[in-house]
């Protein structure tokens, strides 16, 4: 307990680092995930294949492996990614965007067939159909699963602890090693920090889901 209070400054720093990494990669993976989802439903064969291959490979790769890639492998390929924050950001974004893509794609598939048919029948092109009719509706149904993706992302930032990014789990490891007697308190204290982020997100997801379910 004592450690938790006396070291609260450190823990707060870790919390902010976790939050910063989660927020930054959330934005980037939403963007890249949307691009991927568009590719996966587009009429152009090569783009579809690329999207499918990307998602299939990334979904079946451990996140730790992606971190490992950016830290140890990328430099020998001439791909220099900055220390800590930047390679964590790169790995998390590449990883999370595959799941964002899938959440969006299932949202797109959930939009009634009639919507796209109606759009086409009044002469809208593929691009117009997608951006003006289907995607706005897909977004809405995709929000709860997307929030789940963001919750997972928040927890996944912890992998950065193994690769020189000082966030909450790094702090946990340091404090636990230095104060073995207080280890459990440290654990529950840091657990609380994660729950502070994830529980509100989860509650929001539940609310939105109920509301969207109604609208349909």
């Amino acid at each position, binding site marked *: 307990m004592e450690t938790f209070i006396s070291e609260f400054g450190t823990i707060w720093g870790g919390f902010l680092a976790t939050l910063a990494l989660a927020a930054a990669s959330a934005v980037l993976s939403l963007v890249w995930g949307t691009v991927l989802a568009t590719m996966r*439903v587009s*009429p*152009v064969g*090569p783009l579809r294949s*690329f999207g499918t291959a990307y*998602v*299939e490979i990334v*979904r*079946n*790769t*451990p*996140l*730790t*492996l992606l971190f*490992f890639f950016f830290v*140890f*492998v990328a*430099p*020998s*390929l*001439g791909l220099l990614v900055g220390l800590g924050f930047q390679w964590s950001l790169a790995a998390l974004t590449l990883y999370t965007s595959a*799941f964002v893509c*899938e*959440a969006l*794609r*299932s949202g797109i*598939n*959930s939009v*009634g*067939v009639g919507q*796209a048919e109606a759009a*086409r029948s009044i002469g809208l092109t593929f691009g117009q*159909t997608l951006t003006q009719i289907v995607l706005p509706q897909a977004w809405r*149904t995709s929000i*709860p*699963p997307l929030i*789940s993706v963001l919750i*997972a992302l928040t*927890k*996944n930032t*912890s992998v950065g*602890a*193994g690769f020189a990014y000082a966030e909450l*789990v790094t702090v*946990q490891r340091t404090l*636990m*090693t230095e104060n073995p007697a207080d*280890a*459990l308190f440290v654990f529950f204290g840091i*657990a609380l920090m*994660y*729950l502070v982020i994830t529980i509100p997100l*989860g509650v929001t*997801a*539940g609310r939105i*889901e*109920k509301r969207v*379910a*109604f609208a*349909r």
Partner: protein
Amino acid sequence: MSSSVLYDVPGPRARRLDRILNVTFSVAFVAIAAYVVYAFAQRGVFDDRWKVLWDPPKGQTAADVWTSLAQGLGNTLLAAAIAAPIAVTLGAFVAIVRRGITRRLVTGSATVVTEFARGLPVLMLMLLARLAFGWSPLWSVVFGLVVYNAAVVAEVLRAGLTALPKGQREAGLSIGLSPMRTTLLIELPQAVRIMLPALVSQIVVLLKDTALGYIVSYPELLRKIKINRDYFGDDYVIPLFVVGATLYILINLAISRLATYVERRLRERGKGANPPEIGPAGPIPQSGVGGPPRAEGARAGDPVFGANRPVESQPMPQRYPGESDEEFQRRIGQASSQRASLRANDRTGDV
């Protein structure tokens, strides 16, 4: 093609455009790939560093390298093989307790524990076992995997249980079975059956998570690659990494395919209870928790496990006469509040 509804059957002009776009993007991709290969070659990626796989330097033999990688793979599989059965058993136990024992205190505390375990990074749990309990790396990894995945399995099964038609439980109780026996004998077998694809996909998540053992210095595949790289030097990391990544992806792809296969089998046989709806989209958007994406996307009314579920059979919720807003919410919410639990992991990319 699931999304063919987004565009018309192409006419002559669209076909020409399609061909042009196809060629353009194919050429672009090939060009990018060629450039990448060229850039790699410039940096000597394709030089004799690959010899580490068959004729390694520093007086080592290829057998040494491959033995150490095989040991790593063995440890990865070992941790998963220990953790998976325990997690499933524990998860099933929690789900049964929550369903079969209708004491508030029991169900309440089970909910709190599962939510807590699900809301934490697996790595945090592993470090707890490693540093606070002082467990060995293997058991720390197993601990993290078990706690987290048990909570997810419990949630998956709970969603399966709540998705069963109410009549199943009523029938069990009316022939005199206790709530616990009703759950065990009547509900659980059906719930396991409809959630089987989700459960199989959860194995992929579990297997992927073993790679976190790298951070708590459990000598699994990734750690072994690192050890080899440290020994042979940074130049040799690429071939070693390629071997490791291929192994991970192949194994996980195989399990993902198994989940798809199980799902298709269930869908073809098609009888039995409907799977729970997850997501506002209606029927399961993908194969439950984290299965591979279905070739045919989920569309409202897409029958998931049976052909007996047309759109018309899912009426909009209607308010009963005299029902208050809150009662209505509660009645409707019962169905949708269960969905949240299914949005567990692989679909979200939880490590």
